[in-house]
């Protein structure tokens, strides 16, 4: 009698827990499928022939996978040129932004410059510019300076959103490093430069790496400046190639479109995968502390 009651009670306390766990896993599965489905879909469509991807019912996995879309995308649409452009422009513009931005971030975090608050506010305000507002004058200026349709023009134009971003993030990382560390290094005989190199930079490095990664992603995903400031595959990033598929003659070329989409995503994914530890640090540090 006693044993039965103990058994019943222990079963009661187990049942709700199991039920909750099942619910949790069910939710996890549903959300995972929702958030992964479109990506899997692109992958599938890239491998389908036009017969398949325009047929009903749609299948997630192609019945007769084919590589013909890849062939068309690279041969007829010159996907590789656009990819090359994206790589060059993203990496160069990020490099420039970090080169100029990191010292500025340090100065804003540490030095007592006149007008420091105004400069900081100005940089923050620039993050709020809608890019389309800047694109119009940019077009006019770059046209006059003959900077349309080349790498330099894009790299310069991208600074308008990369620089404020880099400064905003890196400044936060510098501010987290207690100034006492630098001061004690200088007391021990280092110059300011030495203290920078030996103490500050190693501590801020992970944050700067995360920032550089995010900046590269922002530059890679940029479309508006790409489509406005270029007009040929000489310098157009791959985002513009993706956009070209809304033209009526290309509108139903889903296979090739998916290949281009895939090709534009894969470098970024690999980039993110390899450096994900730094990314997560950057995501949480930058946002949570406000």
């Amino acid at each position, binding site marked *: 009698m006693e044993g039965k009651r103990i058994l019943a009670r222990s079963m009661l306390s187990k049942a709700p827990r199991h039920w909750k766990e099942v619910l*949790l896993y069910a*939710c*996890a599965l549903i959300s*995972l499928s*929702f*958030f*992964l*489905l*479109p*990506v899997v*879909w*692109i992958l599938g*469509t890239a491998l389908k022939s036009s017969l398949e991807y*325009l*047929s*009903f019912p749609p299948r997630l996995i192609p019945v007769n996978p084919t590589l013909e879309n890849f062939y068309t995308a690279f041969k007829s649409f010159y996907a590789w040129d656009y990819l090359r452009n994206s790589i060059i422009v993203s990496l160069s513009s990020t490099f420039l932004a970090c080169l100029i931005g990191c*010292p*500025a971030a340090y*100065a804003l975090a540490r*030095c*007592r*410059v006149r007008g420091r608050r105004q*400069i900081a506010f100005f940089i923050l305000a620039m993050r*709020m510019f*809608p*890019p*389309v*507002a*800047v*694109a*119009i*004058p940019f*077009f*006019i200026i770059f*046209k006059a300076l003959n900077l349309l349709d080349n790498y330099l023009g894009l790299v*310069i134009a991208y*600074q308008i959103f990369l*620089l*404020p971003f880099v400064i905003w993030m890196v400044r936060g990382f510098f501010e987290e490093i207690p100034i006492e560390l630098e001061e004690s290094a200088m007391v021990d005989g280092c*110059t300011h*430069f030495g203290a920078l190199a030996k103490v500050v930079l190693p501590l801020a490095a992970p944050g700067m790496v995360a920032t550089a990664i995010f900046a590269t992603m922002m530059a890679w*995903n940029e*479309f*508006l400046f790409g489509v406005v400031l270029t007009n040929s595959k000489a310098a157009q990033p791959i*985002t513009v190639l*993706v*956009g070209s*598929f*809304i033209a009526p003659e290309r509108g139903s070329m*889903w296979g090739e*479109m*998916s290949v281009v*989409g895939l090709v*534009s*995503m894969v470098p*970024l*994914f690999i980039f993110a995968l390899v450096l*994900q530890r730094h990314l997560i640090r950057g995501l949480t540090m930058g946002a*949570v502390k*406000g």
Partner: protein
Amino acid sequence: MGERPAPVSARFLAFMERNISYFMLGPTVLVLGLLSVVPMAIAAWLVFHEFNPLQPGTTRFVGLQNILYLAQDSRLFTSTINTTIFVFAAISLEFGLGLALALLFNWDMPGARVFRALLLLPVFTMPMVVGMTFRMLFDYRVGLVNWFLTEVLGTSAVYWLGDPLMAKAAVVIADVWHYTPFVMFIFLAGLKSLPVEPFEAAKVDGANAWQTFWRITFPLLRPVILVILLFRLMIAFRIFDEIYVMTEGGPGSATEMLSNYVFAVGFRGWQMGYAATLSYAMLAVVGFISLLLIRALERETGL
């Protein structure tokens, strides 16, 4: 005995050290200053002129005409409404779902890290690709969504991209897919950084899950919520890429957002005078909303 003057290199280094802040800030101020002041000045000039870069000979001064036209521009009105509806709907859904998912997945379960990493995939998808993918998924005939509706759920197919209302919904859904994991992730980080004591005290006092959430979790998360709200608002308001690829503002101008409209005026109609006027109007609105939020943020977090 006098001292020897310091060698050039040492003097140079000393000069650098004293003025280092100017060297560090100089390039930034120069670059950003040039990139913002000059364009804004040109845009200001444009506001009072008619200017078509393809026909520079037709440039003329028009005074306040562009500004006055703002008031009677119906397409401006619709795009503003569209943008507002979109931002409101998308962000509410993202925050609601994101918070719910964060609370749900805050517990440690095997494979949690892999699961969360996979869930971040949408965040790293290029906006252009998001638009392109959902354009395919929402296709009336062969799209996966309609297939799901008709074959799995048994309801009728929806004319997603052809119906003004459903197109708005489609665009919101695409954005929710794109950014909910991001919001979820930020909330997760925020939840993990909350102090344990209030929750333990609540447990001792016998609070249930709902009370714990409403009275403790939510108030403690306010700063995080505001930061992410500001961030998402600024981005959502200037949405462009996804619309460009997914609906091109259609059907008609049902999904035309502010950025798309300004782009169309400036780079399709080539009326850069009026486009610049629109840009300034847009800037004013964005600036105003951002200022409000920053103020709220400063109040909350005491910055």
